[in-house]
């Protein structure tokens, strides 16, 4: 069950299809992500970006196609699903911090109860992570007492506390006021530099240009185009991509 550490491809999605009732939300989506790679997914609203990254850790079930994460095939086997969830951290648009727990408890909950880590050790590691995201002084506060940017940084620390090999971000800055977007992006940039494998759905084109190794453009449930930022912003191949870039960069 342990991942094949030698494999360069850490996420393999092949011909993934997903329907919501009659609605075909993902159409033959195939994408391979290499270790230490940062992949940014962009596309218009409703194009299936969230749906796709949520199939990777089985928050959504896909109906056909294969997904393999770090050598673990994503099947209906609960053990595989749990193993994959332990390898992938996820950061949500709405933070989804646990409001009844302090920042410290938010971060240590899963390490203590899933990884069976000792409380002291989990707390020491949580403090390190809080320092890494720049808010060690907030450890004993409750999420409701923090600003949006601080909450999202806690959410990142919470995901990192499980020592994941992959981080999934679903529009992590879309719910933030402009002045807070920067602080979250900085944390993500630092994370990318440290070599974390990341799949990021975002509308932040600056981040995509500066940090992404590859950019994936999705529209109507399909992957339309994949390319390096350079290629993507200077020489897009498809009309749909051009139209989308025109709209957001105008």
């Amino acid at each position, binding site marked *: 069950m342990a991942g094949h550490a030698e494999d360069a491809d850490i996420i393999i999605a092949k011909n993934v299809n997903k329907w919501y009732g009659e609605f075909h939300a993902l159409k033959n989506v195939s994408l391979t992500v290499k270790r230490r790679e940062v992949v940014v997914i962009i596309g218009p609203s409703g194009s299936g970006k969230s749906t796709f990254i949520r199939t990777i*850790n089985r*928050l959504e079930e896909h109906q056909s196609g294969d997904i393999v994460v770090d050598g673990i095939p994503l099947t209906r086997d609960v053990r595989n699903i*749990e193993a994959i*969830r*332990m390898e*992938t*951290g*996820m950061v*949500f648009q*709405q933070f*989804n*911090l*646990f*409001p*009844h*727990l*302090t920042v*410290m*408890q938010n971060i240590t*909950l*899963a390490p203590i*109860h*899933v990884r069976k880590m000792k409380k002291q050790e989990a707390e020491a590691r949580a403090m390190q992570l809080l320092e890494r995201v720049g808010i060690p002084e907030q450890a*004993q*506060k*409750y999420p*409701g*007492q923090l600003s949006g940017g601080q909450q999202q940084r806690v*959410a990142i620390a*919470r*995901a990192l506390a*499980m020592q994941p090999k992959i981080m999934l971000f679903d529009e992590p800055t879309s719910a933030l006021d402009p002045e807070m977007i920067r602080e979250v992006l900085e944390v993500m940039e630092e994370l990318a530099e440290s070599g974390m494998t990341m799949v990021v759905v975002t509308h932040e084109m600056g981040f995509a240009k500066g940090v992404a190794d590859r950019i994936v453009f999705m529209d109507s449930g399909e992957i339309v185009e994949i390319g390096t930022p350079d290629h993507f912003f200077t020489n897009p191949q498809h009309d749909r991509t051009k139209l989308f870039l025109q709209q957001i960069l105008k």
Partner: protein
Amino acid sequence: MTSSTLSTQRPPFYRDTRTIAIMLQVLFLLVVLLIGWFLYNNMVTRLAAGNTAAGGALSWGFLGQTAGFGISEGPTFRPEESYGRAYLVGVINTLRVGIVGVILATVLGLLAGIARVSNNWLLSKLAMVYVEIFRSTPLLVQLLFWYVGVIAALPPIQEAAPLGDLGYLTNRGMYLTWIFPSETGRALTWWLLGGVIVGVMVAWLRRRQLERAGVPGSGVMAGFAAFVLVLVIGFLVALGASQMPTTTTYELRRGDRGALFEDINGNGAFDLNVDRPLAYVPITLYGADGQVVASGMTNGDGAFRFIDLPAEATRLEWTTPAPLVVSEPQRQGFNFSGGISVTPEFAALLLALVVYTGAFIAEIVRAGINAVNKGQWEASRALGLSTGATLRMVVLPQALRVIIPPLTSQYLNLVKNSSLAIAVGYPDLFNVSRTIVNQTGAEVQGILLVMATYLTFSLITSLFMNWYNKRVALVER
């Protein structure tokens, strides 16, 4: 500057929001007082005209008079005792069924509520059927169903089969194996009480200490540990000091029954209210030829009685019991001895209250769980927590905020609904109060007493639940 001058400008009093608010409240108070005065006046006039046996106007003297009736269950009550004490026995009986009922209804409601939101189709439909059936039929009907349809249909005592080591279910009640403090463990009751007090204190101190240190957490674990420690110490002390009184004496009548007691007045005979009965002491009965004819244990009142002995017993020996003893129910002719018994009336009332209230609580729990944002489930699952762990550590703690206020109403309903006891003859406070009223004619006093008692219960419950609600409230900015 301008704002301060603005705020000191006073409008005419009838347009001033502050005086309007005060005047409305004063007006409301006046109306309430007026209605209250009218009702009271009316009642006093009626009482004076009717001049009841209880001595006209609201006299409470009857509470001290001899009751002259017995009460079938609850704390021992003899007819020579007063109406006041009879009422108290009723209050204790209400509390018995109320407290046990609230706890069991909470457990049942929680399980059924969780079952309703579960992904398991069968489980969720079963829970739905349960909720719909018991929520939509009258409680009184359900009570009679349990009493007449279920419990009365159980086997009679002579045919009852044992439920493993647990005890017996019969149409005359349940007889269950139980643990009791014996003669040498009498002090354990006090240790238990002390343990609770120490536990609560330790929990409180620990919480304060944690708060000062800025560490989150409650003192519940520390308090519980202290409680257990006190109990263990109590048990060990009782064990070390276990000794039967030097004047232990027995009375043996008709060769098969009698009592074991501390002969305080030294006259060799058991005198009620003077000598002290010795509870749960192992005894062995010997016949005239020195053969063992029976062995067993005294009951909670120090008495014993055997049936169908091979020979008459002439002598008895006892041994020093452990502080706690396990007593199993044993069939003795048309009855059971040992263990604890639950009457059909108590069982039916408890069952009805628990099942009925549990259905409402299940709906409350379901609504509470559904009120928690879906993102909370997703975040927790994405971290690798299982469904159960997510429910326990993430969802339920947040659902509590939504659950507690309506849950409080259900607790109050359960306690108030226990007055339906009168339908099956369980001697709760209302039932006892009716007997008192019938005998004394103190109609108004009886109703006032009952109302005041329920009001007190309700206020205490509400205060406790409000306090608890504050504790689980979320910290906001």
